[in-house]
Each structure stands twice: as C-alpha cells, then as structure tokens.
C-alpha cells in the first residue's frame, strides 16, 4: 500500500472519524453557522458558546468524509476551554500547516492530535475537507464576538 495514503489516513484520524469528540448540537450558544464545501457537498452546522473571553463550548453536526469529520473532532478538542485569542492562534497554526503543501513541520505542543493532518497538506483536493470545520468555527466565533460587542 502506498505510504502516501497511510500518511493521509493516520490512525489518529481514523480514530477521531469513528469516535468523534464533542459531536452533536448543544445549548447554550451565541452563534450558529452552516458551512458547506460546494465541490463535494460536505456540510457542518456549528455552534459556539463564549464566556468571559473563553471558548466554553463548540458543538456541531456534520456529514462528510473521514478527513472532514476527524478534523472537526480534533478542532473541538483543541479550542474548547481556551481563551479566544489562543484558540484563534491555534486556528492560524493549523491553517498554515494545511496551506504548507507538506513543507511545514507541525508543532505538536500547539496542535496535539492535529499534527496527524500534516499528510493531508500533500493532497490539495483534501485540504478543504480538513479546513471546513475550522473555517466554520472561526466564522461562528467572530459572529459571537461581534454580537457580544453590540449587545
């Protein structure tokens, strides 16, 4: 079997795919977004609950491939309980890894299980799968913060 393929489908990814963490939509939440990948139809509905500048909860409902599902699970693990600023910084680190075409060395201290996605960066068609829930989270969090300011 191709080593590239094993590199893409790391055990960590398959584990998160089979047993996703934090899945299911929960209350309370300040914002909810629905993101789709128009080329393949993967979808995620994602809610964010912020309190005192901390990501208290991220809950989601999604359909899609192993990469997009595992990515949502890992993302929720990484950002829940973190201050929004730090979570945004983790988001940025993951984004850079995904856009690095396989040339970025992942930082396990920051990305934890997220380093398993390093292999995805070498498959341009799958980068969007890995980023779907991360983009939804950023969008929802930005909206929640904006609403927080206006209210």
């Amino acid at each position, binding site marked *: *079997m*191709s080593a*590239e*393929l094993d590199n893409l489908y790391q055990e960590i990814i398959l584990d998160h795919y089979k047993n996703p963490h934090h899945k299911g939509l929960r209350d309370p939440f300040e914002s909810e977004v629905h993101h789709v990948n128009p080329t393949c*139809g*993967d979808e995620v509905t994602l809610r964010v609950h912020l309190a005192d500048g901390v990501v208290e909860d991220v809950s989601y409902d999604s*359909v899609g491939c192993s*990469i997009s599902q595992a990515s949502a699970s890992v993302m929720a693990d990484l950002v829940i309980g973190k201050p929004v600023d730090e979570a945004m910084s983790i988001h940025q680190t993951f984004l850079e890894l995904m856009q690095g075409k396989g040339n970025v060395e992942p930082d396990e201290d920051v990305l934890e299980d997220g380093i398993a996605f390093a292999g995805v960066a070498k498959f341009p068609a799958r980068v969007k799968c890995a980023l779907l829930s991360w983009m939804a989270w950023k969008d929802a969090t930005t909206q929640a913060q904006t609403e927080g300011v206006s209210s």
Partner: protein
Amino acid sequence: MEGLLPDLDVIRKDFPILERVLAGGQPLVYLDSANTSQKPQVVIDTMVDHLERHNANIARAMHQLGAESTEAYEGARDKVATFLNAPSRNEIVFTKNATEALNLLARTIDLGPGDNVVITEMEHHSNIVSWQLACERSGAELRWFGLTDDGRLDLSNADQLVDEHTKVLAFTWVSNMLGTINPVTDLVARAKAVGALSVIDASQAAPQLTVDVQAVGCDFLVFTGHKVCGPTGIGVLWGREELLNELPPFHGGGEMIETVTMARSTYAKAPHRFEAGTPPIVEAVGLGCAVDYLGHIGLDAIHRHELAITAYALEGLQSVPGVTILGPLDAAERGGAISFELDGVHPHDIAQVLDSRGVAVRAGHHCAKPAHARFGVQSTTRMSSYLYTTPAEIDALVEGLHHTRSYFKVG
C-alpha cells in the same frame, strides 16, 4: 465477453493517455468518462495541425489562412450536423459547453407570469439553475417531475405537470448520476401536445447513444464536446432553424450582426446569430474530428460495448459487500455511469484509496444535488466507462473496493 468492441486493443491505442503510469507505478484505470472523456490521437493531431499550419481568425480574414481556418471551422459544423442527423447545418450553434447552450435557451425563450417550465429532479445543475434564474426573472413557475424509488422519472402526475401553460419541457436524456435513460420521445410528445418547447440535455447521451434529432422530434438539444472525445471549451446547441431565428440574440458582438449603426443593429440568422465574437475555433475543429471518429467506429457498436461493460460492472459492484447502487439495475435501461454507496466508507475516502491504486472515479454530488437528496444521500462514488474501457478495468475497480473495505476495517 459478448458486445465488446471487436478491436478494443486497437481502439485503446488511439488514446495515448491510457498508457499513463501514475504514482507508485500504478497503470491508469480511467473510470471517469462521464466527467470527461479521454481524447484520441487523431483529435489531438488535428488540433495541433490546425494551430501549426492553418491558424487564423475565421470569417474576417481575407487571406489564405483565414479561408483555411474558416473552412475547418465550418467543416466542423457539417460534421456535427451529420452526427445529430440535423436537417440543416444552420441549426448547429457552437457554444462554450452544454451549460452555456442551456443558459442561451433559458435567457432567450420568452417567459412570463402564468407560464410554467417543467424540468426533472434528475437534472444536472445546469438544467436546473438556468431555469430557476429564468423563472425568477420572468415570473414563470418552475415545476419538476419527481423520481421513483428505482431511479426513473415518476410520470404518474405528468398530465397535471405539463399543461396548456407549459412553455418549456427540459430534461436530460441520460442521467449523469442515476444512469437512467429517459423516455425522450414520450416526453417530446407530451410537450408537443400542449404546444411547449422541448429541450433535451444530451450531454450523457451523445457519447453512447445514436442521437438523431429528427427521429426524436425535439425542438432543442444540447451536448458538450469534451464528453464525446473532443476538447473542452466547445459545446453544441441544436435547434429547429425557424425556432432559432425567432429567438432574440443572446450575446451581442462581432459576427452576430447584419449591420450596426450607433442607434441600432440588425442580427444575422442562426447559427451566427448566437456566435458573437471570435469562437473557440480549434476546439470546434477538434470536436468535428471527434464526432467523425465516433461515427467511424459507429454509435451502435459503442452502445453495445457500453451495455456489455455496464452489465459486467453492475454485477461486479453488487458482489462487493455493502455496496448499494443508485438507479436502474438493468444495463439495458441505463447509461455507463454508475453511482453507488459503500457502507461505512465515505465516497471521498473510497475515491482516495482507489486513486492510490490508479483507479480514477468521481466522488461527490456530481452536480446533481437534488437527485442525491431524493435518495437521502449526500454524495456517492461514481464509476463511468466508455468505448476504451475493458472488463479488466472493472475488475480493478472491484478489487479496489474490496481493498477499501479492509483498509477502513469495514465488515
């Protein structure tokens, strides 16, 4: 195996890309022809020859190359007219693709409040969205035929759907997702009975069935070049000459006019009426060569080949535990595109594992989201064969699916 093209080995040699070796030394198994077909050497050579020796703009250049280029472009129109058995070459309009041809019709056919347009739930997005836009603009109502559980058009309410207010009945001949071959002559007759225009999307039919516009009796028919062994960037709108000349222009520009003053213009007749600007010349020349190539092999022989391969593929796919096929299970009632699900593995992941073994299929909604929604699925994996597909390639797909199940530890 009965029905296969007798010179399959020779035909495969016509397609240089089939010799490609992919990453890891895997030979290419190309099962994505409903997405785009591969190109025979003769099409590639014809296009290169045109660019190397005859390139000039058409219809405007008063020199030898201009005459040669014009002759090649207009010659392609003749070849396409023959391919469709069109009564007149003036009925062949070159467009960018089938999508543009459908948009041309949806933009120029006069619709208004009280009118309705009838489509089907198994259309490609191009034959849905263009009519949605037309109805939003005009106030006409959009209606559609639903589908039966086995992937056929549900005609039980046809008399209510297609009524005296129906202006357009637009439908696909062969579904790109379900493979279903629709009863085109019956649908055309329904349109005719209420005075509606019939529009057929033959994008999936033209590669594998004899398309005879006179026998079908429709008003308009579209297809795309790149699925019939031609290049991308070229499509065809066929329409009855008198109807084409009644439609207002689509794009304004050079070559679509009779005369222009600063105040107003008058327009050329079809086909030039709809070919504003410099057209895709070498693409049209390539398409002309491609339909000649298919005509030389014979659409009947190609269809028999597709039937044999499709039947073999349906059998092979059903031998894989957990595979569910969408659409008719009888090869005689369908085209060569087969969409399926594999329990426990997402289509992207299936396609990825198959790709690592050199097997190219499509995964996703195949630009037919409503048809997927009808069957409660978000996406499917689709294999599609063509005249160069061998039974051994179907075996490679089936083995690849067994491997996919074990790779993802399913079952």
